């Protein structure tokens, strides 16, 4: 993908932080409002894809290599499966929600019924949301970036 005009680049640079913040909000509030790691991750990844479209794949791949993205993705996946293993260690069962019920970290049980709840609830669910969110952001962006870079390189007659 080649670079687009200056207007597009400026607008993208302005819009990018808003899209990013919105995506992070969706990830962080996954256990309270509609959304979660996948949805928020998709929002952030599309913000990154917007950058890619506006600034061109060569500029983007100079800023961030796909190898580094791949490492981040591994980290997200390991965090997720690690939380599952922590369930095995602390709660005796794989994928146990071992944090629920304690009183400090994400452990508060909300009042049954409707009502606004605290963000400090739901045990491991918010942590898993973050792990999955990281994975989805990096994963989707890596797919788009690699495909865009490969196709532009080809067009320049490198065959």
């Amino acid at each position: 993908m080649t670079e687009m005009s200056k207007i597009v680049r400026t607008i993208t640079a302005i819009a990018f932080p808003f899209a990013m913040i919105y995506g992070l909000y969706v990830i962080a509030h996954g256990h309270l409002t509609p959304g979660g790691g996948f949805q928020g991750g998709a929002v952030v990844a599309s913000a990154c894809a917007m950058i890619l479209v506006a600034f061109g794949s060569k500029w983007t791949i100079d800023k961030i290599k796909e190898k580094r993205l791949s490492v981040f993705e591994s980290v997200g996946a390991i965090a997720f499966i690690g939380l599952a293993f922590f369930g095995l260690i602390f709660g005796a069962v794989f994928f146990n929600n071992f944090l629920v019920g304690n009183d400090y970290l994400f452990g508060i049980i909300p009042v049954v019924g409707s009502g606004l709840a605290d963000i400090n609830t739901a045990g491991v669910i918010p942590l898993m949301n973050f792990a999955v969110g990281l994975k989805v952001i990096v994963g989707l962006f890596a797919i788009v970036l690699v495909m865009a870079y490969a196709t532009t390189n080809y067009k320049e007659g490198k065959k």
Partner: protein
Amino acid sequence: MNVPEYTPALIVAVPLLGAFLTPLISRINDKLRNIFVILVLGLNSLLVGLLAFNIFTKSTPDSPFIYTYIFGAKDVTLPVVRILFEVDAMSIFMAIIASILVFVAVIYSWSFMKENTGLDKYYTLLLLLTAGMLGMMLTGDMFNFFVFLEITSIASCALIAFWTNKAESVEAAFKYIVISAIGALFVLFAIALLYGQYDALNIAVLSNAIQYTFLDKIALVLLIVALAMKAGIVPMHMWLPDSYGRAPSTVTLALVGATLASLYGVLRVIFTLYGNILLEPAKFDIPVNMFIGWLIIPLAVISIIVGVIMALRQTDFKRLIAFAAVAEIGYMFLAIGTGLAAMGTAYGRTALEGGIFHIINDALDVGLLFLVAGAIYYATKEWSLDEMGGLARNMKYTTIFFVIGILAVAGMPPFNGFASKLLIYESTFQLNPILAIVAILCSILLLAAFVKVFHSAFMGPKLPKFKDVKEVPKSMLFAMGILVCIIIFFGLFPNLVLENIVRPVADALLSNAQYLSMVLGGA
């Protein structure tokens, strides 16, 4: 000997964790990564072996032992919300096959794939494929089965396309992913139909609730069609020779496992999910089992015939073996169909035992042949049979392994294929003699096809261009040696295997009532 109760979860989680760690480790050192992958798969095979030992010793003919593991909670709640792993003898039997195949493949890769780039992704995908296959085999939840089916198909599709500079590999991979995507979506639609009616996803719960309404019939047909398509039965078999023939040999070995995992899906759907209503009369007073059985048998026979005839015409080594694999899958389906059509009789059970025994024999024999083909490619860089000749002099061990492989595939006496094929012939003869005759004739023709290969590739004068051909490296010989040892062991003591492994598996498949009570009894 007892294993920790979380072993089934570890069997899937260990290769997954290994796959997530592989990209990180391969940044340090390539050799370290290879050792790490072999260690992970070795640990995994060990876990599978321990669990298998546990299950086979605890199973008795009257009450097959089922290992249940609940994700996320200590006890089963009713209704069953959480995902359950339900590991019975059948699941663990297939898991043994898969882990043997992948373990051998990864040892073989050490030398075979050394020349390639992108090996970190190769090993990652191989581990993911293993996790997917094992997940399909151990899970007791329909939707979880679908998820692992997708992992398996995406990973194997990517591995088929590993040699991206070859147009044929990419084309084969595209065919495979289209077939897989359609199959998986059909499976998902069938799951949705069942979910919409019974509001359950657990196999045992669904099996308990199924009424055999019209929607259930549609779901059954969709599930069987989709999974049989992925197992490579004839009307939809064309992807199989393409992808088997164009993937690296190690990947082909893993693909054999993936195909057998789909076959396991067919067995699980028919015998467990729809197990409660198999003997009930459906349309025109024909019981359901006869219906499905006679639906499968013609397809199986056509698979055998097409596979053998196409194998006779091939000049490409790996495609020839791939068509032989189609024929072998036909034998398995023939046995399953016979077992269904004659359910409840003694020979129906024999057929089922023959079919189950043939699953592992086929995996080992066909796998060995693919490895031999890979070894020849490694030495000569040649797939076409017309170009080969006189290799026996330079590659002694490979030649011996090849001879063992073809005799085993064709079902010649001292090897393992004989025992299982004999059971299949025996039982199909009692159902319908023509079927048995066709099966025997095709087996002989298959031997003829392989004798042709043997003659043109290994016999004859030494060709000048293969003057410098050397025997393949030790790690590849060792990998083939593992398979040969198991083949010879199974061939020499078929009764031992039949008594201790195949019989519990057949018990597990046929005793549906126990499956339900074992899984749901704790609740």
